[in-house]
């Protein structure tokens, strides 16, 4: 390697690269001993299923018997022309935007109000974090009671106002908003906890210095606290993105994708049309598209936001 770059500045100390350095300092032995189990497990449970999915997506297969009916890119062609898939893609993007622009600001405001250690704040934090602990299916069921147009809160409100009962879960225009509400309700506490942890790590002398200089509380937040927790916000946005693309078990009990398949996310679309309808090849194709979307979004977000300025 060194002979390729004869003009390297003499001042720069040449470190022997990768392999030979590891061989000389003995870390190669450690690598040989400790790496194989991890690589084996990762390959078995991550890499291999991905390749199996890619392989299956080229077949028409109902889940039983041998996989023989090779159809090439037909599953993908059907998928790209499927209007329900377009709707579910659009829904996932809506959910992603709602997670970032509704949920994270709410979590941030609450974190700024609650990050100081007092007993009242601890109680509030505990309450706000509770929905995150709840199982997703249970959450969906609770909220389906609430949104129910016959017996739920929705019905009570309609009764009080003296209007017709409003079946929001069966309303094509509004049903997806219920899912956004439930997702925000369930996960804002999680993001709030990330922000609280970051805010507590902000050195208090910085905040005191800003206050002594006469900065108003809002200015202290904007110029001191927010820049200091920017890395946590970026991380939180990453979690919100990957989480929003994977929402599934809130949709199933709440609307089950209905009315007329207008509230599917990509994952519930995969489940309904790939697995429940025994069209495993098609489901695999959806999975591959979802995988590419997730990896693409996460990587480009990492490139655009996380790597900048060397944070994280």
């Amino acid at each position, binding site marked *: 390697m060194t002979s390729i770059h004869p003009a390297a500045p003499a001042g720069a100390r040449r470190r022997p690269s990768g392999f030979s350095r590891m061989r000389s300092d003995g870390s190669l032995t450690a690598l040989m001993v400790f790496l194989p189990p991890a690589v084996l497990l990762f390959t078995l449970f991550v890499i291999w299923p991905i390749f199996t999915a890619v392989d299956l997506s080229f077949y028409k297969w109902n889940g039983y018997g041998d996989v023989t009916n090779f159809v090439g890119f037909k599953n993908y062609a059907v998928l790209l022309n499927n209007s329900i898939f377009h709707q579910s893609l659009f829904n996932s993007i809506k959910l992603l935007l709602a997670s970032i622009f509704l949920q994270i600001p709410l979590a941030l405001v*609450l974190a700024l*109000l*609650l990050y100081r250690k007092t007993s009242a704040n601890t109680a*509030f934090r505990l*309450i*706000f974090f*509770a*929905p995150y602990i*709840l199982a997703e299916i*249970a959450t969906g069921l*609770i*909220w389906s*009671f*609430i949104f*129910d147009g016959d*017996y*739920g*809160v929705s019905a*009570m409100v309609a009764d009080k106002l003296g209007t017709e009962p409003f079946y929001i879960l069966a309303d094509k225009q509004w049903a997806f908003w219920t899912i956004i509400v439930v997702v925000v*309700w369930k996960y804002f*506490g999680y993001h709030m906890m990330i922000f609280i942890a970051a805010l507590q790590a902000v050195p208090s002398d910085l905040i*005191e210095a800003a*206050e002594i200089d006469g900065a108003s*509380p809002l200015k202290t937040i904007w110029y001191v606290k927010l820049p200091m927790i920017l890395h946590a916000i970026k991380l939180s946005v990453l979690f919100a993105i990957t989480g929003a693309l994977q929402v599934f078990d809130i949709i199933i009990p709440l609307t089950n994708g209905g009315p007329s398949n207008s509230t599917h996310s990509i994952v519930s679309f995969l489940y309904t049309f790939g697995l429940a309808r025994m069209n495993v090849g098609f489901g695999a194709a959806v999975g591959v598209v979802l995988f590419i979307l997730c990896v693409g979004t996460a990587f480009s977000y990492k490139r655009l936001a996380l790597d900048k300025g060397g944070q994280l």
Partner: protein
Amino acid sequence: MNRPGLLSLLLRAAFLTFIAALVILPLLATFLGGFKTLGELRAAPFGIPSNWSFDVFVDILTGSVFWTYLGF
């Protein structure tokens, strides 16, 4: 450091209580729902159960399904 005024403290408390209510009420309804009969749960999902019934809890804890799923 200037102390926050009474108004802002009240606003803060009101906001936090509002959000906390939004979080707690569904959880509380679920908890209370466990003590209601199915008919009452349907007719009045929110509110105190008219008579506290522990039947479902007994059913779950004495049945086998729950323990199987739990891993016993």
